[in-house]
Structure formats: C-alpha cells, structure tokens
C-alpha cells in the first residue's frame, strides 16, 4: 500500500466516521420520547469521534517517521557479516553511510556484492514495512473510534471533551515555538561538541589562522591552528562596522526628518518607500553588490591609481548598510514619535529652534530606544548571509582595511556545508561550532536590545 492509497483511505474514513457519529447522535436524540437527550449538540459527538480517529493515527505516524530510520539502521547492522565489518575497521556507521550511498538504479562498477545485498535489504525493509504499518495504524484508528461511538449516551458530555482536546492541541501548537528553540540549541550543541572533541575550544575561539581545507589531509586531521576563528570574527566585525556606518547616519537622519520636519502627507508617502528597502530579498542586495557595486568601486579605485579587491569589505558592507537602513529609520521614527509632545512644546516655548529641541531634548530622551534599535540592527547585520556570500570573500583575512577582501561567520557556514557532505569530518562540524557562536551572540544582543526598548517604553507609557 503506497502513501497515497493510505492517505485516501484515511481521509475518506475520517469523513465517514464523523458523519456516522453525528448521524448516530441525531438518531439517538430522535429516539428519545421522554427523558434526557444528549447533553451536547450532535456535531460534537461527530467531532469527538473524528478526533479520536485522527489523533492516534497522526501521532503514531509521526513517531514512526522519526524512529523508523533508526530501526532500519539497527536491523541492517545486525545483518552485516563479521569480515565485512572488520574490513571497515569495525565501524558500523561507516558501512551504513557507504550502503546508503549506493544507488540501486545505477550501481557503481566494482562495488562489493555484500554491500549491494545489504543495500537491497535496506530498501526492502523501507518499503515492505510501510504497507504493514499503514494497515496497523488504520486499524488502531478504527478501534479508537469504535470506542467513541459506543460512548454516545445522555451521560456523555461530548462538547467538554472535544473542547479539552482542542485546547490541548492549541497548547501543543504553542509549544512548537519552544520545541524549535530547543531543537536549534540541541542540534547545534550536539554537533558543536563533536567538533570540540577534535579541535580544542580555545584554539577555535582564539586561533588566528583559518584554513579548513588543509586540515583534512591524511596526516593532518585537526591540525592545530587551522580552525582558529579570530579572522572570521574580525571579518564579521569589519563588515558590520562598515554597514552600521552607512545605516546609522542615513537611518537616523531620515527618521528625524520624517518625524520632525516632514508634513503628514510627505511622511505618509516616504515611510512606505523606506519600508520597501526592508522588503527586498537579501539575494537581490547580494546580486547588486557583486555585479554593480564591487566592479564599480574597483574601477573607481583603478582610475585613481590604487587597487582594491573586487570582493572588498566595503562593497559588501556598504550594501548591507543599505539593507539595514529601514531597521534603524523605522524603529527610531517610532521611538522619536513616542516622545511626548509636552517636551517639544516646553523647549520651543523657551525660544529654542527646532534643531536645538531635537538635539538637546528629543534625542537624549529617545536615546535608549534608539540604542535598542541599533543593537537589533547590529544583530541583523551579523546574521546576514546572502549579501556576504555573494559579495564578500571566502579566504579568511585578519585585517582592518575596508578595501581588502574578508570573510564572515555566515559565509564560512555556507561554504563548509554546501560542498561535500562527509558529515563527521571536522570541516562540516566546524560549521556547527560557528553556528552556535552566531546563535549565542545574536541571542544576547536581541535580549539586551529588547530589554532596553521595553524599559524605555515603560518610561513614557
């Protein structure tokens, strides 16, 4: 039985069962001349049956999908002949990955027959168990719903049960957010720990040389110094600084003009235009940076007689700055607007000019909110991927020169993982170590920024 056959049977049974249960409830009500009828509306009995059909099936399905690969792996490992195991150095997971890499449609000549047999066995397991499984869970669902059908009586309050099940479903949906965070943290930590088993933690955090490609030669696995992340951190820092030096002045000045000097009409017109900058996908910015800005700057520099990299930090950082402008201008605009008018009036009534009012009263009052906005923007810049992947370099370079090419944390994560997938090598694990560093740094920045903005809001609300 294939997946679609199962799905059709599942869906039609669900509809039928619900209709049947509702019908049964209606007939029950009709059959009672005197005495208590059903305490809840008939459709709730239908829903109750439906829920107890669907939920067992879906949850078992989910659990099975998660655990099936492990089960199959286990069964296949049991079947590995001892001599084969020895030829792979006693490492069953290595055999497993080799088997999984075999394409039964197009067998690579020279593959060991035993491996081919095991691969066929694994395939069989995958497909044969499916049919059995579908039948099993459908029966489970039917058993469940037969119990619920029996329960239709005047003592059974279906609506309460349905509602309590529904609420539990809602709670489950809400906890998915937590599950996601936990998933992120665990998956990153798990892989990162495997990385740090091979590369010492301090070498990673404080090492000055990053060249992961050289570290996987036979004689040099996890060579020290090749996973030193400082040049990467400095690259991220350099590009972020360049980005902020574009976005903060433009963003802040735009926000000031929009909230203090522009007429209402002008503001209604310009604010959405700035929002458009935020809606442009980052891959478009990356394209612009790589195809237009990079060569333009290089040509400009050439005509003045000095040469800069075509993947310079200033090209990538500058365009990233443009992307971040709306973060700063939008948040600052909100923050400046929420400064009470009474302060503005008080200052203007003293004979201060508008710019003096802004510089000496409004901005200092709005400062915490603006700082919060800047921190959020910095966090966005640090985590940005596509612009730097397309416009910044790949070689780690410890420099403060904006005209050089540098690489960032996000670029390295992409480079390390988009190539080959030997999943256990320190090269791919390094990506997770970088990932968890990134997650941690942005988390701290975000929490701190939100705290500042919250404190600021309390002051004025």
């Amino acid at each position, binding site marked *: 039985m294939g997946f679609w056959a199962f799905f059709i049977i599942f869906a039609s049974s669900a509809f039928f069962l619900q209709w049947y249960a509702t019908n049964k409830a209606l007939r029950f009500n009709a059959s009672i001349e005197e005495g208590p009828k059903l305490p809840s509306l008939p459709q709730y009995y239908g829903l109750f049956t439906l829920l107890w059909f669907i939920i067992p099936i879906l949850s078992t399905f989910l659990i099975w*999908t*998660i655990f099936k*690969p492990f089960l199959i792996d286990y069964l296949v490992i049991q079947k590995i002949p001892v001599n084969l195991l020895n030829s792979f150095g006693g490492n069953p997971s290595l055999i497993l990955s080799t088997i999984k890499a075999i394409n039964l449609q197009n067998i690579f000549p020279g593959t060991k027959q035993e491996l081919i047999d095991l691969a066929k066995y694994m395939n069989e397991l995958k497909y044969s168990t499916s049919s059995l499984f579908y039948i099993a869970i459908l029966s489970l669902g039917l058993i469940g719903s037969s119990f619920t059908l029996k329960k239709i009586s005047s003592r059974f309050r279906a*609506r309460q049960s349905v*509602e309590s099940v529904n*609420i539990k479903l*809602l*709670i489950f949906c*809400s906890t*998915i*957010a*937590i599950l*996601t*965070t936990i*998933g*992120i943290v665990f*998956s*990153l930590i798990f*892989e990162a720990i495997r990385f740090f088993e091979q590369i010492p933690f301090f070498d990673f955090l404080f090492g000055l040389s990053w060249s992961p490609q050289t570290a996987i030669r036979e004689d040099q696995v996890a060579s020290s110094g090749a996973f030193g992340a400082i040049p990467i951190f400095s690259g991220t820092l350099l590009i972020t600084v360049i980005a902020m030096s574009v976005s903060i*002045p*433009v*963003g802040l*000045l*735009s926000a*000031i*003009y929009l909230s203090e000097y522009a007429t209402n009409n002008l503001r209604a017109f310009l604010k959405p235009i*700035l929002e458009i*900058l935020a*809606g*442009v*996908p*980052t*891959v*478009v*910015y*990356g*394209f*612009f940076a790589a*195809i*237009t800005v990079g060569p333009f700057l290089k040509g400009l520099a050439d005509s003045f007689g000095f040469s800069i990299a075509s993947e310079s930090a200033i090209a990538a950082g500058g365009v990233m700055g*443009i992307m971040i402008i709306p973060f700063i201008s939008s948040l600052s605009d909100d923050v400046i607007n929420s400064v009470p008018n009474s302060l503005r009036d008080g200052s203007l009534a003293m004979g201060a000019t*508008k*710019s*003096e009012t*802004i*510089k000496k009263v409004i901005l200092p009052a709005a400062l915490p909110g603006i700082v919060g906005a800047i921190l959020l923007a910095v966090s*966005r810049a*640090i985590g940005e*991927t*596509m612009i730097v*992947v*397309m416009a910044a370099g790949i070689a780690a370079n410890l420099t403060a020169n904006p005209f050089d090419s540098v690489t960032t944390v*996000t670029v390295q*994560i992409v480079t390390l*993982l*988009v190539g080959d997938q030997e999943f256990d090598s320190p090269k791919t694990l390094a*990506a997770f170590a970088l990932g968890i560093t*990134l997650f941690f740094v*942005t*988390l701290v920045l975000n929490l701190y920024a939100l705290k500042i903005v919250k404190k600021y809001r309390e002051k004025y609300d």
Partner: protein
Amino acid sequence: MTKNFEKINDSLIKRQRSEKNFKLFGLIGIICAVSFLIIILTSIIIEGKKAFVSTYIKLEVFFDSKIIDPDNTKEDSVIKSANFNEIITKSILENFPEVTDRKEKIKLSTFISSSAEDELIKLIMLDKALIDQKKELWLLASSTIDVIHKNPDMLNFPEDERLIDDKESKWFQWFLSEEKIKFSTNKNFFSNADSTEPEQAGIWGAFVGSFLTLFVTLILSFPIAVAAGAFLEELAPKNKFTDFIEVNINNLAAVPSIIFGLLGLAIFLNVMHLPRSAPIVGGMVLALMTLPTIIIATRASLRAVPPSIREAAIGLGATKFQTVTHHVLPLSMPGISTGTIIGMSQALGESAPLLMIGMVAFIVDSPGSIFDSATVLPVQIYLWKSTAARGFVELTAAGVMVLLSFLVLMNTIAVYIRYKFEKKW
C-alpha cells in the same frame, strides 16, 4: 533685560544657520535612502530587461535526406537520431564559402544554440515533406553571440576581453549588416527549467519549486501559528510558562535565518532522513521561520477586537473556546491574513536556510511533487550569479525582476485586504 535681548539677538544668526543645516542633513538622509532604492532597481531593470529577448539568426536550412534518412527508412527513430548538427553547420557555412579551416568551421557552428537541433527535429516530425526541401528559418543563437548582440560596445574591447575573437567578430558583423540577425521574445525564459546553456535556461523549474515549497510552508505554519496565537492571546493563563513561550517566540523572530537552515540540516536531513533539496524539507524549515511572524500578527489582530464582542458572546452562554472560534477569530481574519501574506512573501525571498538543506543542486527538470529535488527562485538567482558564463548575468537580473514582481503582487494584495476588510473599531 535689554542686555539679555542683545545677547540673544547676537547668537540668533548662528543658531538659525545651524537650524537650516540640520534640516538639510535630515533631508539628505532621506534622499540618500530613496536614491539607493532607485539605483538598485534601475540597475537591475537595465540588465534584466535584456533577458526577455533572445537573439535569432536567419539561415537557409537544407533538410538533406542523405543526412536525415540515408536509407529512406522513413522510420521516426532514424530521423530523430540523425545528425542535425551537421545540417545546421552546413547551412551556416553556406554564407561563408571562404572558410575552409576545420577549426574555423567549428567556431562558426557554435554561433547557433545546441537547442536548435531539437527545433529542427520537431519541424520534420510535424511535416516530413520538408525532407530534401530548403527553408529559411530563424534559429536561436548561442549565448556568446546573444551577449555580444545585446552589448554591442563589447566589439570595441581588446580581443582577450571580448568573448569572441576577431574572425568571429567579422562574421557577427556580417550577419548584422545582412539583417540576418534579430531580437525576438525569449520563449525559454518562462517555460524552461535551468540549463547549462544560458540561452536555454529558464525559471520555470524554480517557479514550480517555489510554489511547492511555499505551499508546504503555508499549510504547516498557518494553522499552527493561528492556533498558538489564539491560545496565547485569549485562552492561556498568565503564568511563568506562557511568559517563557512568549519570550521564545520573540527571540525566534530575530534569529538569523541561516540558523534555521542548520536546524533543518541536523534534524530533518540527518535524523529524519527526509529527501535533500525537496520542497517538503524547505517548506518545513521556512514554516518554522514564519511561525513567529504569523503568531505575532495573529495576536495583534486579536487584541484589536474590542472586549464587548467577547462579553456579548459569554453573556449568551458561550464557552471561552466557542467565543474565540466563533466570534473573535473570524473578526480578526483580515489582520491575520495580511500578516500571513507578509510572512509568505518573506519566505519567498529567503535563500540562506534553503542552501543549508541542499537546494543548491543543478536541477534540470521541474519538480513533480513535494518530495522531488527542487530549487526556489532566490536560490536559482544565487546559482546563476555564481556561474561563470557571461550570459547568465542578465538572466540573474531578470530572475530578480520576476521575484520582485511576485513580492510586489503579494504585498499589494496584503495591503488591499487590510484596506478593504479591516474594521476600524
């Protein structure tokens, strides 16, 4: 008092000047921001609009039966496997009888795209009477010629920077002067999937991939997010646990997108062994990313519904659950839909997390289901940009234009819904 007045008067000029400057700086800020936007859009449109036309070369093609069907079998399989490349080469060489060197002949034959062979096969299949006939046809030119045709100033570059050598340049200019070369709409762009040849590459594959992926994202994120949002806003007790959930949601909204990609890689691919590069995995990753956006939008819309509605429902004996599902939620649907559409449009433009789960492979066929390998529009743009062939530059820009048009469309719909249906309480 007059002493004060003098002092004030003296400093006034300087202060007013500084006021004017400050206002000017603010204006410059806005002008910078708006000009950046205009520059980006213009440079993309200038490059991208070139991709919507292709170059065609006019040739007189002789469907030589000696090449197509030498034994006169009239079998389809024989005809289809004939060497049409030779037919094309012969047709083009007819225009340049002086060319005898074998290498130069090959150079000339590369003027025409490799897809032209399939075009000729199709023609013959439709009308076998064409065999042994001569016909004037416009055939698709190769990407190199296409690039030169669209960027004629390249002819003035020195030879090693141009894309064609001097001889090829002369031939090209001959075609121009004879008016045997023209622009026509690029039929491949919207109908083909990716290809190694720029003149044959199209975005259809990426378009289908994006559609399937967004479909998965929507059916996963919308119900869960609305359920979670409704629960947190209306039904949840206010305790430490729900506060913790809220903090989590706000944090997830700010986590860099690439982290979600790592999550997808570690769990969906390596633990759950879902197929790499498939819309189902991409959709799941994007759904996790979009959840916070829709949850926050749901909560904001629910908050905007006045308490009087809830009180009226409860006064009639509805449970809290019924109040929410029958009354409050339907009223907040416009706001929720707007938030969902905006979340979807953000997901449409995402590429970083999808790179992590493998959607970088070169896909020639459009995906048939959510379990097939696929790519999405933004990743296709990234892939084209990373390719060396010069002909892909304009394709990339055109791809960007298509992506941006969809985003504009989706956001306009969102704004329209908000405008038309949102009640002002």
